[in-house]
């Protein structure tokens, strides 16, 4: 099903255009139902008791005082979990409710259902848990060295990914080394974890929840509840952002347990503090790098050791480690590579998916190294990157040959050619200076720097994962108009997939009216809204289903009209003959007929990595973006302002140009956050800043205007030639900003986020 010749690429509001979001009007009116807005008659409120300790044995749980509180309907502990009390995306190692041990601060121990959220909170406070507090394990490198108590059977290494490529003992004339740290970043989606579980008459439960992957939630929920799959039905509640943080379960099993136990609908909504405990974060990392090059700055080898702290439970630590290792040298052609990446357990908060997924941590290190190499060779930072830029045909450290556009040199040269912001002159506007209207400087002590960075990200699921999406498309005449319906289980998390899927149908079927059915588990899996994969995967599935509908329609039309079907196409609501022009209105040809097709669609298979050498065609597609940052730094106070943040990205084909820009702008902002402000600070496994007062994310004052260029170099293997868009801009934004701060200050800055004290040395 790869016919494309009759695709109507000029369809009104089809691909390549930017129609308004179908949910946009409801969202601006305040009428869009997010998962935290759901309401049911007679519903109860759920609340969670969480461990205050990063590591402790549980010596006893007394729920009697909580149960005695008027208005409390249920207090449940691990003994009330009817199925397997374990879940997890890669390894089922995480208890639904803790048994005899807690492994992180915030681990759920008991859950409550009550008639008011405050009653539920008070009941939680009345649960008496005995803890024998243990010394927390917090050091990833010690875990790899085999030190400390084992937090899980088999030890504290979740995964070790070695890459051995080329010669392992080469030397080089120029050698630069560095040790880099990346802090723990939070997705900080604005819509809190939330959902509504409604018990059903068949003994099952209907769950309305904000998530990224309905079917993998369902799979984990049925295991914990001990119910067959058809008894647990999920529907996507409105999602207030995700960024990876909704891949793991939060309220899902808890709300279902409480609903089944009480026989009443149960709503759970985390507040912001609980949200910091309630989802996984970006892995903090320590990275040791050595780059060897000739005197012209051409790379001879890269050696790296990477330690990613996965926290208390595995989540997606294995896959994150795979990405960090396989993308560990960045978008460069390197003949000899030695990488070891470890993802480890600790008593820190669990870490898993966040936009960029392993590529972010590596990029901060390898791009810092490229700047170091440039200095060592007396080269311009862009020049050293151009000399080593990978391109189509490059063999990556996994041995995989890149078989579509990899325009790293073009990204950099276009970026360099963009105009720079004007230098400050005269009496400056306070609002343009570090510190802003706090009036901390009028320009004295302020220095400016410019930095560049480029990054690489794998698109879709890798390492042999059976990655697919399911889509159903129906075409019929409704109310005198041809109308299409599209159904998938793909989660709209804000990115605009609902718009894209409609655009694809309009392009393939030439109909304007497209209805999107609710996303739920009544259709097959769409896979996760992550890995920048949904336009590719669910877009691909919807297109394939639409093409099947079109083929059936054309055959039907040929029969009715007595025309050769090879001569027919559809577009603009008409059935068209290549030789005779418009033959009939589509609506008349349709009559009472309906064409309904469901397709399961896969990308090209990938391979697992060789466990000894890390060799294998592990990734299906690569995405690239490059950033240039201009930063003003007040060296006296350590305050800074990002003055400009420009980006060039190749997207293969911009299905919706406005949404593409939105992804680049939003992704760049998250990279800015990691560069200069965002970190979950832990001390002995305890989170010090679980609030938006203390965990800062960029405001409109922090984000500079962006110049953006979008390249469309088609990937011949992908639907419409598209390349996943969401993650690449988050990757190169961070190192570009730090490079600019280094250029301004001359400081080494080997850790993100950069804090004021790193700039003032105080």
């Amino acid at each position, binding site marked *: 099903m790869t016919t494309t010749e009759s695709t109507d690429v000029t369809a009104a509001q089809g691909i390549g255009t930017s129609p308004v979001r179908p949910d946009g009007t409801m969202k601006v009116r305040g009428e869009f139902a997010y998962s935290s807005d759901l309401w049911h008659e007679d519903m109860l409120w759920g609340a969670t008791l969480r461990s205050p300790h990063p590591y402790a044995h549980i010596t006893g749980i007394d729920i009697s005082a909580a149960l005695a509180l008027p208005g409390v309907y249920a207090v449940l502990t691990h003994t009330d979990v009817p199925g397997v009390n374990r879940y997890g995306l890669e390894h089922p190692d995480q208890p639904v409710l803790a048994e005899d041990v807690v492994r992180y601060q915030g681990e759920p121990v008991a859950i409550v259902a009550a008639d008011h959220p405050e009653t539920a909170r008070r009941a939680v406070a009345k649960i008496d848990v005995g803890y024998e507090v243990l010394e927390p394990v917090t050091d990833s490198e010690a875990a790899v060295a085999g030190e400390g108590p084992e937090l899980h059977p088999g030890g504290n290494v979740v995964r070790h990914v070695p890459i051995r490529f080329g010669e392992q003992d080469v030397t080089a004339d120029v050698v630069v080394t560095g040790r880099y740290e990346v802090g723990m970043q939070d997705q900080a989606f604005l819509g809190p974890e939330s959902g509504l579980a409604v018990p059903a008459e068949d003994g099952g439960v209907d769950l309305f929840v904000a998530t990224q992957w309905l079917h993998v939630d369902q799979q984990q929920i049925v295991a914990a509840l001990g119910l067959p799959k058809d008894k647990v039905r999920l529907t996507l509640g409105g*999602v207030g*952002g995700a960024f990876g943080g909704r891949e793991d379960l939060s309220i899902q099993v808890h709300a279902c347990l409480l609903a089944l136990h009480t026989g009443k609908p149960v709503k759970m909504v985390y507040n912001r503090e609980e949200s910091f405990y309630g989802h996984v974060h970006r892995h903090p990392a320590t990275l040791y790098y050595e780059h060897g090059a000739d005197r012209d700055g051409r790379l001879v080898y890269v050696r790296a050791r990477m330690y990613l702290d996965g926290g208390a439970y595995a989540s997606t630590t294995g896959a994150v480690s795979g990405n960090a290792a396989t993308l560990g040298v960045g978008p460069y052609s390197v003949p000899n590579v030695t990488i070891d990446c470890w993802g480890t357990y600790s008593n820190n908060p669990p870490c898993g998916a966040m936009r960029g997924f392993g590529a972010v941590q590596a990029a901060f290190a390898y791009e810092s190294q490229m700047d170091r190499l440039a200095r060592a060779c007396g080269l311009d930072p862009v020049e050293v990157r151009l000399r080593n830029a990978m391109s189509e045909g490059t063999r990556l450290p996994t041995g995989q040959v890149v078989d579509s556009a990899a325009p790293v040199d073009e990204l950099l040269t276009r970026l360099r050619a963009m105009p720079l912001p004007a230098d400050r002159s005269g009496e400056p506007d306070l609002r343009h200076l570090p510190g802003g209207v706090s009036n901390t400087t009028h320009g004295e002590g302020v220095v400016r720097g410019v930095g560049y960075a480029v990054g690489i990200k794998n698109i879709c699921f890798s390492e042999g994962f059976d990655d697919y999406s399911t889509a159903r498309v129906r075409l019929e005449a409704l109310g005198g108009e041809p109308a299409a319906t599209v159904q998938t289980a793909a989660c709209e998390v804000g990115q605009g997939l609902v718009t894209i899927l409609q655009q694809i149908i309009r392009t393939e079927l030439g109909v304007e009216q497209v209805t999107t059915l609710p996303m739920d588990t009544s259709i097959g899996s769409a896979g996760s809204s992550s890995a920048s994969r949904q336009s590719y995967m669910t877009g691909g599935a919807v297109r394939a289903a639409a093409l099947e509908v079109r083929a059936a329609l054309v055959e039907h039309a040929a029969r009715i009209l007595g025309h050769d079907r090879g001569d027919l196409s559809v577009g603009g609501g008409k059935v068209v003959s290549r030789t005779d022009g418009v033959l009939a209105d589509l609506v008349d040809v349709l009559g009472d007929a309906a064409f309904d097709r469901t397709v399961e669609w896969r990308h090209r298979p990938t391979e697992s990595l060789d466990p000894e050498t890390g060799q294998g065609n592990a990734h299906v597609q690569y995405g690239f973006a490059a950033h240039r940052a201009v930063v003003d730094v007040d060296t006296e106070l350590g305050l800074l302002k990002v003055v400009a943040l420009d980006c060039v990205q190749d997207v293969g084909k911009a299905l919706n140009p406005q949404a593409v820009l939105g992804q680049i702008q939003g992704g760049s902002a998250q990279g800015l956050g990691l560069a200069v402000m965002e970190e979950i600070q832990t001390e002995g496994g305890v989170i010090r800043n679980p609030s938006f007062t203390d965990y800062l994310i960029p405001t409109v004052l922090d984000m500079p205007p962006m110049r953006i260029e979008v390249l469309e170099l088609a990937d011949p293997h992908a639907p419409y030639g598209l390349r996943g868009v969401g993650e690449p801009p988050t990757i190169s934004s961070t190192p570009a900003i730090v490079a600019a701060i280094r250029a301004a200050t001359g400081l080494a800055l080997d850790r993100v986020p950069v804090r004021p004290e790193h700039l003032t040395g105080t």
Partner: protein
Amino acid sequence: MRLNVTVNGERRQADDVWEGESLLYVLRERLGLPGSKNACEQGECGSCTVYLDDVPACSCLVAAGQAEGREVRTVEGLAEGEALDPVQQSFVDAGAVQCGFCTPGLVVAAHDLLDRVPDPSDEEIREALAGNLCRCTGYEKILDAVRTAAGAR
């Protein structure tokens, strides 16, 4: 307690309100107006912004009792029937809405700005919206939307 409050021009009453409830909770859970959002409930994100007697406020920081006898205007009260307010329309058109969780608060804040400053500079827009967090858009298209709305009003 019983709470009497005028919301979007309509006199409303809520019974059995616990004294610790916020105005945001009452709007969302008792009056059927979940448009104002609960992103942080700490006054940091601005997603719950409503007009309280014509002054924008974080409704999560207003105790329900403080709203007794006062007038509240929420995001649900900005459109005239089917016709969106120009601020709402420009947010949709500009692509300023992704997940949309910040949108109600930003729409109210931008609406208030344009009431006070019909033709704001970029610096004025940034200052006015600095109390509203958005995690999806990087704010560029929100600025576009406010500029467009200023032209349309």
